[in-house]
């Protein structure tokens, strides 16, 4: 807009005074347009220099005395701390300084601990190392007001929960601690959300937090794993609703993950083996899996009603309530696995058809083909677990192929017609 102002003034569309007012308006709205490139390269530079120094020290020079190697292990840590102190005292308003020095210190803390482990030949326990590292760096998020520290912290605690909950499950770490650790960066996230609605850091936080929760949820599973299917489905529903309620951007991270996850779950559970197993299981109510599934479903349902109240005019999207359909199918599946398999296939097909129709209405080739892809995937999956003859399967494939051609061709025709 500001770039076009001289041209508009020259053409006599607006006066010089109006142009000045517009400039003033945008300057007020965003008083400190700090260069995004400078911030990105600042962080990248700090990380590269930090990693470089660490790699040089990690060579583990044999000729050096142990005390000297130990002193060297502190060098990156102290450099990072001095850089952060300088930023705090002299450059507090510069995002580039804050983020770059925090990134450097974040890496150095982990590096100095592992360098000392190396000097003393400590095999060590990865999960306790990660926990100590993350706790030592968590204050950076608030002291330095650093989003990169918050993002690194999220990666770290996600690694921690995966290590303690999946990979080294019997090594004595506590994966449930993750949920407490997750609370630490949330005030910063909320602050970003309130202050800076269009920043890149906010988008990254949306993505990292939703993916982190998604990864961590599975660590709850112990014995009644079947309920985790409901827990995941409701989590995707929750994400979708959060995305459509609280974030203005149309294609935001929550909506994308929620929608993709829901579709993937429906296709994944369209095979009959899960339902066959389910009908044989002795399900234990009041297991941790059941409680977490119930809580997530309740939360998603509450959010759905809240959305109906707040945005009553917005058209209803069946993906928002997919988790409810899934719960009903799940209950049906306990009684009859055939009924559940048929119902879930019908629902998955319905999502595909709905997406195709929506793409066609919005004149959007991407959405249209995404819908067709859902249907195709479903057909391919049925290729493996049904006893249909090759002829029937062949006919199905030909039909879907024709569907792709017809849908795309007719949309392109429609567009051409509109252009004329």
């Amino acid at each position: 807009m500001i770039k076009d102002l001289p041209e508009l003034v020259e053409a006599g569309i607006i006066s010089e005074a109006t142009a000045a007012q517009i400039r003033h308006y945008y300057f007020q709205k965003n008083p400190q347009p700090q260069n995004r490139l400078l911030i990105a390269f600042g962080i990248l530079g700090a990380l590269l220099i930090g990693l470089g120094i660490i790699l040089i020290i990690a060579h583990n020079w044999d000729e050096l005395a142990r005390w000297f190697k130990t002193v060297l292990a502190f060098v990156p840590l102290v450099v990072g701390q001095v850089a952060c102190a300088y930023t705090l005292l002299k450059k507090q308003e510069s995002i580039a300084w804050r983020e770059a020095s925090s990134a450097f210190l974040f890496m150095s803390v982990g590096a100095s601990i592992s360098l000392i482990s190396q000097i003393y030949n400590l095999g060590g326990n990865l999960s306790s190392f990660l926990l100590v590292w993350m706790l030592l760096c968590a204050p950076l998020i608030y002291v330095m007001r650093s989003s990169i520290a918050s993002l690194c912290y999220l990666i770290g605690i996600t690694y921690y929960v995966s290590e303690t909950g999946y990979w080294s499950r019997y090594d004595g770490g506590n994966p449930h601690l993750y949920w407490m650790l997750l609370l630490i960066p949330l005030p910063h996230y909320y602050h970003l959300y309130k202050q800076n609605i269009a920043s890149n850091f906010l988008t990254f936080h949306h993505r990292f937090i939703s993916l982190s929760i998604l990864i961590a949820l599975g660590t709850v599973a112990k014995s009644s794993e079947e309920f985790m299917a409901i827990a995941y489905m409701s989590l995707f529903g929750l994400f979708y609703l959060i995305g459509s309620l609280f974030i203005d951007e149309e294609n935001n991270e929550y909506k994308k993950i929620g929608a993709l996850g829901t579709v993937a779950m429906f296709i994944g559970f369209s095979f009959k083996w899960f339902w066959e197993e389910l009908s044989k299981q002795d399900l234990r109510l009041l297991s941790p899996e059941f409680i977490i599934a119930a809580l997530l479903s309740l939360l998603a349902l509450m959010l759905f009603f809240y959305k109906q109240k707040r945005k009553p005019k917005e058209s209803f999207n069946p993906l928002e309530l997919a988790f409810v359909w899934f719960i009903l199918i799940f209950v049906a599946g306990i009684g009859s696995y055939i009924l559940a398999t048929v119902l879930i296939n019908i629902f998955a097909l319905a999502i595909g058809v709905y997406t195709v129709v929506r793409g066609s209405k919005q004149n959007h080739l991407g959405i249209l083909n995404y819908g067709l892809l859902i249907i195709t995937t479903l057909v391919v999956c049925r290729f493996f677990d049904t006893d249909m003859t090759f002829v029937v399967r062949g006919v199905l494939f030909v039909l879907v192929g024709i569907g792709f051609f017809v849908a795309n061709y007719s949309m392109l025709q429609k567009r051409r017609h509109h252009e004329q």
Partner: protein
Amino acid sequence: MSSRNWLIILFAVMVLAQLAVPFKMIFDREKVLSEGNTFKFKTAPIDPSDPFRGKYITLNFAENNFEVIDGETWQNGQAVYVLLAKDAYGFAKIVDVVKELPDESNNCVKAKLNYVATKKDSTKTIQELNVEYPFERFYMEESKAPLAESMYWEVSRDTTKITYASVSIQNGRAVLKDVFIGDVSIRELVKAKQP
């Protein structure tokens, strides 16, 4: 107090904590090295299919099994304390494995219980704990580690030569000091072999 002052105080606390953790690590290990009891752990041939891991040698110890009668009360992965003594040749041997750190513990090291094995022979069933010591990595200079590791592999399959790790132990903590082939440090051997 202004919010800026609070930030500076919080920053100072964070800096101190970040320095304290590595300092404590060093302090604890130096204490073990100066006051601890030194044991020689005989090594066992390592699985040659184990991939090369980088700049450290992976050690495998001969003395890592201990027979028990209450095998079912132990859990895989749990922390255990291994009580050690020296055999006639001065090598470490396991005297007992317990679940809590004993009071008098200059001969005790904290380890991880890998698994409980049940072995049957014609007369009875034996239950055996297999432990993993916290000193199975010996770090070396990057350029020397591959040569050292291949030497270690070669020698540990040769029954005429004894390979062992020298480990200082105190209050459940252990610090690996050096690895010896025959009676010569592997560092010296590598140095002599390197062009």
